[in-house]
């Protein structure tokens, strides 16, 4: 009886200590997440404008206005267009991972170099990109001129080229990250599966096609999910390298949000955009999870 009493006392003190340990992070969650989420939802239904000093409840008016704004759809289209970089990066990263997934000298050095662009300062790289892709004096067009004898494209002035410039930046910066994930994924493919192919008389191509590539599907899934979530929130590169771009060709959804909030000071509309973006992200993630059941290998057979 007495023993049980001490045990429950111990348990109570453990629970108290546990709650104390999670208290700070929970405080952050409650205040900076829950409270402001609610606040943001409320704001999205008002005509809150700092400049005009208005703060009236207007229901879903903001959402309607944003959804009727062609510029919003253009920015969403641009954002999705810029995500072409995800499959391009994945294919390149896979080739690199396959090349480096073997006993070879200098492997670490290659890995370090390919990852290097991920470890850089955002604005610095944006400035560098503007310089490299400068139509007149940029090194890229100088090389094009040297090789072809003709002037290169106007990377930052032509609506189609602006997107390619931004996609190239994304691929360059993200390649090392994806490659490391793929290398880790390759390590996890069970060796026995390759032996099965050997026994069945298959060659290296069969191993790649029927074992390696399908077994890596959880890694593709992770890369795609994180890539899409990050891609939908693109802003910094555009803001510095291209601005809105010619004909708003570089305007992303978050850029649109930034303009609504901090150029027009139309905070209600900005919150509405943020909510639309979140709903879109959640919907896309959910669809991907649903679809993944069909193609992602989960180790169950």
């Amino acid at each position, binding site marked *: 009886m007495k023993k049980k009493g001490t045990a429950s006392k111990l348990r109570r003190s453990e*629970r108290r*200590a*546990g*709650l104390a*340990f*999670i208290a*700070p*992070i*929970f405080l*952050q*969650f409650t205040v*900076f997440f829950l409270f*402001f*989420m609610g*606040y*943001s939802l409320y*704001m999205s239904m008002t005509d809150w404008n*700092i400049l005009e000093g208005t703060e009236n409840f207007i229901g879903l008016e903001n959402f309607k206005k944003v959804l009727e704004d062609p510029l919003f759809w253009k920015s969403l289209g641009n954002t999705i267009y810029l995500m072409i970089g995800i499959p391009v990066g994945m294919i390149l990263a896979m080739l*690199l991972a396959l*090349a480096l997934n073997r006993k070879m000298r*200098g492997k670490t*050095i*290659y890995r*370090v170099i*390919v*990852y*290097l662009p991920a470890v850089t*300062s*955002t*604005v*610095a*790289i*944006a*400035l*560098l*990109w*503007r*310089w490299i892709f*400068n139509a007149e*004096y940029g*090194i890229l067009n*100088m090389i094009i*001129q*040297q090789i072809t004898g003709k002037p290169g494209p106007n990377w930052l002035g032509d609506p189609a080229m602006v997107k390619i410039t931004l996609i190239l930046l994304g691929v*360059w910066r993200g390649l090392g990250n994806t490659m*490391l*994930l793929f290398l*880790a*994924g390759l390590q996890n493919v069970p060796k026995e599966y390759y032996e099965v192919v050997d026994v069945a008389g298959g060659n290296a191509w069969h191993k790649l096609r029927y074992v390696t590539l399908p077994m890596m599907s959880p890694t593709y899934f*992770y890369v795609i999910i994180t890539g899409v979530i990050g891609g939908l*929130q693109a*802003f910094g590169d555009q*803001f510095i390298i291209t601005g809105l771009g010619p004909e708003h060709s570089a305007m992303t959804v978050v850029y649109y949000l930034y303009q609504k*909030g901090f150029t027009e000071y139309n905070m209600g509309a900005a*919150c509405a955009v*943020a909510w639309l*973006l*979140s709903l879109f*992200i959640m919907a896309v*993630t959910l669809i991907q999870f649903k679809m993944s059941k069909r193609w992602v290998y989960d180790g169950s057979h």
Partner: protein
Amino acid sequence: MKIRTKERLVNTVIHIIMILVSLTMLFPFIWMISTSLKDKMSALEFPPKWIPDPFNWEGYTEVWEVAPLLSGIKNSLTIAIPVLLFGTLSSAMAAFAFAKMDIPKKNFLFMALLSSMMIPGMVTLIPQYLVWGKAGYIDSFIPLILPGTLGNITMMFFFRQYLAGVPNELIDAAKIDGAGWITIFRKIMLPTMKPAIAAQVIFWFMGIWNDFMGPLIYLDSEENYTIQLALRLLNNMSEATSEYPMIMAGAVISCLPLLVLYICFQRYFVDSMVVSGLKG
């Protein structure tokens, strides 16, 4: 014998490809450094010169006066140090509690915290901005420091994954010796978590160093600019192409701390990438 020659041939081909890939990846860096060491005129020369002749360090001396880089570095560190110190502690404590302690409604609380990772920060950005504004904290570091000191849910998640692999016997033994939870956390958990902490702190530091949106909306006066905002001032001059040696010098300076961290702690980067990729 035959197999070995074939193997060697494959390796040579891969080496050649990888050297080309490495050069492509390094090319922007090489050009950044090369430009930063040129004088105004030779930066615009055609055909381009890869190695500046002579080396010109003017960009590196001028850039400090044109853009407030020094105060930018100082301000970024002023934000990063308290956030990393307290935020990491708070995340580690919570991770320990979730991994090893008995808490009422543990799973529910944990899932609630994780759910917040699904919502982009943009949603809470604007009301936060308004509240900080009403409280009179625009153009101060408080809005950029305070939330972070309470912890980081991504970091907490990785720590918990890491601690799940630490045997409970360690804790039980300490309990028998009469150690309290704080002692167990300080003397046993923190030391075991060291590699995970190192990796996560580096990543978070990079995040703070590179944060652009936060400082952009909260900080107004130049003397409060973080490194990224200070660099952005250089962008305004990039219309004048002849200023590029100086602009690139600024870019090199702002990349250096991160590159040094990366070279020194290269192993941790790879490790934590692998953990995040597999279990995230």
